[in-house]
Each structure stands twice: as C-alpha cells, then as structure tokens.
C-alpha cells in the first residue's frame, strides 16, 4: 500500500442554513482526515451523523462553511478532478426514461469519450453489474437493487481512480451485498481508492482498510480497522474434531489458570445469518424446484462453518 494522500480535509465544517441565512444544523464539525491511494476507506456513523454531507463536500456538491477539502490535490469545487472520480449517490438518482445502455452512453459522453469506447465500455459494465437481460428496459421499471447496479455501472464508466460510494449495499439483497463487497475488493486489487459510507458495520468490517466514525458531525474514531478492533485483553481459540464435555472444560480451565488466564466461554460457534442465507440460496440453485414445507423436513443445518474471508 502506497502512502500517497488522495483526499485530505482541513477543519472541514458544514453548517446548513435556511433561506434567510440562519443556522439550522451543524452537520460536520472541523473534520480532519486523509485518505490514501489504494485503500478502502469507510465512513461510519448513525443516521444523520454527516457521512453524506462529507461526501458531498468532497464532490463539490456542497461548499464548506469553513475549512477546506482537497481531492487529488485540487480544491473540491474544481471540476477537473471529476475526470478521475466515480460517484454512486446514496440513492441512485438517474434519468428514469433512459434505458441502461442509453444511461451509460449519456454519462460516457459527459466524459468526452469517443463513441466506440463508449459502446464497448457500456457493454462491459452492463455485463459486470449483471443487467444484460434488462439493458433495454427504461430505468423507471427497475427495482431498487437494479438501480443500485446501474448506478454503480455509471460510476465506473470513466475507469475512475477514486470511487465514492454512499451506502453501496443499501437496497441490495445479501447476495447483492456480497457481490458489491467482492467488487469493492476487486477495485482495491486494481489499485483504486474507494470511499464508502455505511452504517452496516459488517460490510465495513469486511472490506475496509481504514475507517472514520462520525457522530453528530464529529469525528469519534479514525484508523485501521484491524488495530481498532483488536481486543488485546482476549484470546480466541478454535479447535475441531472435539466433543464438548465437562471434562474438556475442566482441563482447559486448569490449563488457562496455569498461564494466569480465565476461561470466558466455550461452545459451538454460530455462523452469521448472512452465511446461512447465502448457503440456502446456493442450495436452492443446486436443486431447482425444491421448497421448504413446514413440518415435512427439518431446517437445513449448518454443519461446517465456512467463512468467506477476503483478507487472509
């Protein structure tokens, strides 16, 4: 990972005012962050904490009340920086009367791409986001998830170096969310920088290298996910091919006491619902026509814990 700073903010502050210039809401207070080349950066926080505001300030959709933001070394209001940026808004607000191909062609033109390049790029992206079958339908007929996909495609039309995603997984089913997360990881392997806002913590934990946590417009925590989350007081141990018994428990307690520690819990690990859901969907694809009838069949059980880890 290189350490070139791509985005930096100095005391970035945003106060929303009403028509008469009266202060209504301090959405962001003196934010200082740096985002580096090639990382996936997460902006976390509860609803209304100022994540979207930060992103809009970086994009020049809002002008700071105080402080400054620089993207690629240029002030955020500079139009030129947009050449290298891809933006997926919180909700994908696109023109509903265009179909997927027209949408991508339109945004391609805004990047001044020549026609041939626009066409190949559009086909490639439509395939990538899985809308090939629906590419001729107007966007007004799209479901929320489909709109999110075409929104992502338009954000990638210029092969951007910095991708800003506001709530990329909102509205997506777990399958879609997983796909989105995989895609973000792919972007990172290609050396792109990604900024994503989210309040879905598991998403952030899965893909982000570094995060900033905002609350009420103030920065609460900022740093590498790994270091932030590591619990140095505890140690986790996993073992397989064992029967859970009181004997085992006693032996372990004794062993741990000898090292000056203490056993907190012992038991079967549960998987996440996400993993479970994904497996169910996988299986239903493998056995088309099968369905769950209450009483007839026991719920499929989790037998082996299989975690899909992105980071080794």
């Amino acid at each position: 990972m290189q350490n070139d700073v791509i985005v930096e903010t100095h005391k970035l502050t945003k106060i929303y005012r009403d028509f008469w210039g009266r202060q209504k809401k301090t959405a962001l207070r003196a934010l200082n962050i740096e985002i580096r080349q090639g990382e996936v950066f997460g902006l976390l926080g509860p609803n209304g904490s100022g994540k979207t505001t930060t992103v809009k300030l970086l994009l020049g959709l809002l002008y700071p009340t105080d402080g400054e933001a620089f993207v690629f070394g240029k002030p955020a209001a500079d139009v030129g920086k947009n050449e290298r940026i891809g933006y997926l808004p919180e909700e994908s607000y696109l023109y509903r009367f265009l179909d997927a191909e027209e949408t991508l062609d339109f945004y391609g033109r805004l990047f001044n791409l020549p026609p041939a390049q626009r066409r190949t790029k559009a086909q490639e992206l439509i395939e990538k986001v899985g809308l090939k079958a629906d590419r001729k339908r107007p966007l007004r007929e799209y479901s929320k998830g489909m709109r999110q996909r075409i929104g992502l495609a338009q954000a990638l039309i210029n092969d951007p170096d910095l991708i800003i995603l506001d709530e990329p997984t909102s509205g997506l089913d777990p399958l879609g969310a997983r796909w989105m997360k995989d895609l973000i990881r792919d972007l990172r392997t290609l050396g792109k920088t990604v900024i994503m806002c989210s309040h879905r913590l598991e998403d952030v934990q899965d893909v982000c290298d570094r995060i900033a946590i905002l609350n009420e417009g103030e920065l609460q925590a900022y740093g590498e996910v790994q270091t932030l989350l590591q619990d140095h007081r505890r140690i986790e141990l996993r073992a397989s091919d064992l029967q859970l018994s009181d004997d085992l428990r006693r032996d372990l307690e004794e062993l741990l006491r000898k090292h000056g520690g203490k056993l907190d819990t012992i038991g079967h690990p549960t998987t996440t619902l996400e993993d479970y859901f994904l497996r169910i969907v996988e299986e239903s694809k493998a056995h088309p026509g099968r369905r769950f009838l209450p009483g007839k069949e026991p719920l499929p059980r989790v037998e082996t814990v299989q975690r899909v880890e992105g980071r080794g």
Partner: protein
Amino acid sequence: MFAVLTFDRDPALYQNVPAQLFAWIQGAGGWAAFGVLVWLLAGYTRMRAEDRARIAPWHKRIFVASVAVSFLAYLIAGGAWLAQFLPKVKPELAFLAYAYGITIGGAGALVAAGLSFVFGLTALRFRRIWALAKLSFKEAIRNRVLYGFSAMLLVLLFGSWFIPYKPEYQVRSYVGVVYWMMKILLLVTAIILAAFSIPTDIRRQTIHTIVTKPVERFEIVLGRFFGFTALMTLVLLLMTSVSVVYVLRGVDPEAAAESLKAREPFYGALHFENTGDKSKGTNVGREWDYRSYITAAAPNQEPQYAVWDFPEVPRSLASRDSVRCEFAFDIYRTTKGFENRGVSCKFEFQTAHFNEHDKDSYNADRSRWMSKGNLFSKKDIDEWLAGYRTRLAPQALAPLELNERLDNKRLRLMANPLEGDPPQYRLSDAAIENELAEEYGYYVVPAKDITDYHTMYIDVPAGLFRNALQAPSGNTGRPPLQARVSVTQQSATQYVGMAKYDLYWRLDDPKGGHEIAAFTLNFYKGAVGLWLRLCLVIGLAVALSTYLSGVISMLVAGMLYLGGGVIDYIQSIAFGTAPGGGPMEALFRLANRQVALVPLEESAAATLATSTDVVFRWFIRRVLDLIPDVDRYDLTSYVGEGFNIPWTQLWIDCGALSLYLLPWFVAAYYLLKWREIAGPT
C-alpha cells in the same frame, strides 16, 4: 384595416445597428455594474482568504482596472447629469459627457462582469453540451410532451368555421390564425419545459450524477437551451409546413391578388408640401395619427402634395419595361354620397432632371405622339429627335455623349420598320410612354380613382428610371426620384391619408409569376420570427431557473414576455410622454385638481413630485432594459399582407435577440456556479 403593411416601428436597418449597440452597452452595462457592486459588497467580502488567494493575478488586474474605469466614467456621468441644472453649463455639452460617461462606464462594467464568464467559456466542450441537449430532447419526447400539439389539428379541422371570412382577407385571416395558434402552443410548451427542467433535476437530485462528472455547470444551461430549442424548432418546422399547405389550399382569387405574394417594397421618405408643416398634412381628427391627410387645393391656393423622395434608385429597375408603384391610402370623407366612388388623385413621378417648365411641352408631345395610331413616318421621328436635341441643350453635354444619346434613341424609335413606301415605323403605346419618360424624366397619371382598403398600382414606364440614373446635370438639390400625389379638383371635399410606408416601388417583378413560391418562402421566414421568440422564452426561462424554482421561473419569464407586449406603454411612462407625467406628478395633479396638459405651477411640492418622478423613471428605465422587445419579432403581418420579409430584418432580429439573452446567460453562469447543488432549496 388596410391591405397594406402598417409599421408600428420602422423596419430594421443596418445603419441603426450601431445606435442600438450603444444603447445595449448602456443598458446591459448598468446591470453589469449593479451586479459587480453587489458581488463586491456581498460576495467578495464574504469570500474566504484561501479562495481569494486562488484568483489568478492577471484576472484580478483586469478586473480592478475595468472596475476603476467604469467607476470613474459613472462618476463623470453623474456629475454631468447634475451639471445640466447649473445655469452656466451648456446642456448639449452636459448631455454629451453624460452619454459618454454611461457608455464607457457600462462597457467597463461589462468587461468586469464578463471576465470570468468568457474565461469559463473556454472550458466548454461540444460533446457534453450535445449530450445534455439530447437528453432534454429525449426527456420531452418520452414524457409525451408533444401530444399537446395535436390541439393544432383542431384549428386546422374546424378553423374555417370560426375564422372571419371575407374573400379578399382570406389569406390574411388564415395566416393570422395559424400563426396565433402556433405561437400559443409553442410558447406555452417551451416556457414550461424550460422553466421546470433544471429545478426538477435539482429536486430529483439527478443533477448530482451530472455535476460530479467533468461537466461545466454552464454546459447544463446551454444543453437545456439547445435541447429544447432543437425540439421546438422541429415542431415549428412541421407545424409551419402543415400550416402553409392549409393556407394555400383553395385560395380565393381576390385574396391571392391582395396578399398571396411576397412583395419587395422599396420605400422612400415622405414629406408634405403646402400643408403648413413639412412633416404633417392636415389632421382630420382620426385617433390614430399614423397617417396624415391632404385635400384638393381651394381656389387661389397652392395644391397640397404628399411627396415621396427616393434618395437612390436601384439600378436593376431600369432594365425592365415598367416598374410597379403600389399604394394604399386611407380616405376620409367630409361629404356623404361618395361612399362607393373613389377619390380622384393625380400621380406625378419625376426625376431630378425634370424641368418644371417642361410639363406643358411633355403633355403636348404626349398627345401628339399618342395620336399617331402607333405608326410613325421618318419625318415624325426626325421631328421627335430634333425636339429631344433642343431639350438636351441646357445640359451642355459633350458632343460625343449627345450624339450617342440621339443615335440610341433613333435606333429605338426605328426598331420596328414596316414594309412599304414610304417606310413607317411601329411604336406601341408603352414604348411611346417609355421614350417620353426617359426623355423628360417625368410621368403623370392625371386622375386615378383611389378606393379605401385596396392596394392599387400604377405601372410606371421604366424609362423614368433610366432617366433618373443618367449622370446628374449639376446639383439641383432634388432627389433623383420623386412621387408626388395630390387630390384633384373633382374630389375637392375629400381627404386622403398617407404614411411613409403607404407607397413604394416593387423591387420584385409583379409579372414574374413566382408568387406562390415567394409567398411560401415568406411564410417560413415569418416562422423565423416565432422561432426567435421561442429561443427568447427558452433562454429566459432556463436562465431564470438556475436560481429560481420552476413555477417562479415560469411566471417571471411569462411576465417578462407579456411585458414585452405592452412595452410601449411602459416606455411612455418612463420617458414622460404619457400625458400627466409620471405617477407622482399624476398623483399631485389629482390631489390639486389640475388638468393633465397644463404645466404645473412652480412650487416646492410640485418640484418634489416631478423630481421623485425622475427617480421613478430612472428606475422604470432599468426595468425596461430587462423586458424583451417581443413585438419586433412578430412578422405575421408581413406574411398576411403579402410583403416580403427582408433578410436584413431577420439578421438584425437575430442579433438583437442574442444581445438580449447574453446578459441573462452570463447571470445564469454565475448563479449556477455559485449555487450549492445539494444545498437547501
């Protein structure tokens, strides 16, 4: 009322362009100065130091210099304005200083305000504007906006039931109705589309994905403008084509004779003689003072003349056989019983070479040669040539030139010899008239019955034009060609009213036979007038909507447009030509029960009232600069009356529209640039 074009204003001419340009610099410059002032007070002071530091130094220098020039010039203008009240200062001098002051001040302010704009234009890219234009186009079509235009069908299907019908007015009525319908449908659609497009983009946040691309915000304005203009242009083209077919099918022959053509008039300047006032005839008490009236001379009085001077004569006319002079006058009757009979007028056409004393000899020659039964002997021709030679004597031509003229005339007179002995030569009546007109520089129609409501004509022998184009014989101080109209004694009690544009030469050939083609082309030219108004409302509404909401933009644009329709009235208040002065003076008069036309008594209160009006008028004048002069683009009457729309008119109108829209676009540029797209709305 009259089958003749009446002009509310003079047709656009290139020689008036510089004056209009100066007026524009003063008007737009005033607003630019206001904008710069507001920015300096409210914008610059609130700008953060780091943003100020980012302004390029050359940019800063030009800005400061032009603001300083502008400020000084306005200071001088203000001083000059005050100086006009000082007793010692010559008012012309003060006025000159004032005019220069506000022009230079305006120009400086325009430079200061336009600097960033012009610089910003270099960043625009055609492909992006085109993409945005195409988007607007598609949006309108896919939202089924065009269905509204099917209302036009109603007019086409059932129009003839409602259109007032009088055979000779058929073309005019139909033209009026189809243009009116097109105007309403297109303008309303255009204004709604344009006013709501950007605000909707902002409200639906679709604009977020656009401005986060490398799109200059002004490209959005231009894209919208061009997109809607293109759409409306196509619709207009289609509607015009359908309309022209509608108007052309089954035209009444009378109507065709009146207006199914595209006359190219050649106008002169009108003055009156023996009416007491060169610029006016008699006032017969008609409310509308567009026309002035003449009547037959009372015994032992000089006859009254309406005289059209043609300071130049188009060379192309001289090569024809005859040139048509068309006219349509108003008749004001003081005696009953003549309603259906025309008024008899005498028409005299004369060149600068014509000698007043030759009238008798012209008449004698004319009756003599006309009585020959179109057959001339050698002797007749010799006599004619001898007479011509004596008439040329005062001109003291060089012998070579004199002989050439005589030889040419002989050739023409002897062009059609007949077999036989002694030889005879045939000369048609028209040829005789032509020869006489060329010889004397004179042609007369002693009595022509004029009827109201009709365009009438006299085919004048083109010999007159050949005479007019001959080298001038010394400086007579007379224009090369004059048309003089007087009322004959037969119609002693009648008045005939005329205006400058009531009499003209036809530059096109009325016998050429391309009337329908010319009319059709002219119909499309008339549509250009509507097209310009479409551009106007689209530009205005789009520019306004960069700052205002959709509804408000629509209302403001609509009001400015409608204000353009009554601009003359607003102008009359602003420039103090309305009787009773401005509103304060009117109020003062009302309070003191004074009649509007009596000058106010000198009193402190009266002075206050009139000087408050000065401020009021100044203010109104500034507002006037914002109002588009929409009537100038209304070319319907040209088409309806069968007059060719000069290309000059179209070009100048295009220019005027561009100048009107430019400041709005500059304002839109800044407003959208400074606007927080995602900010509170």
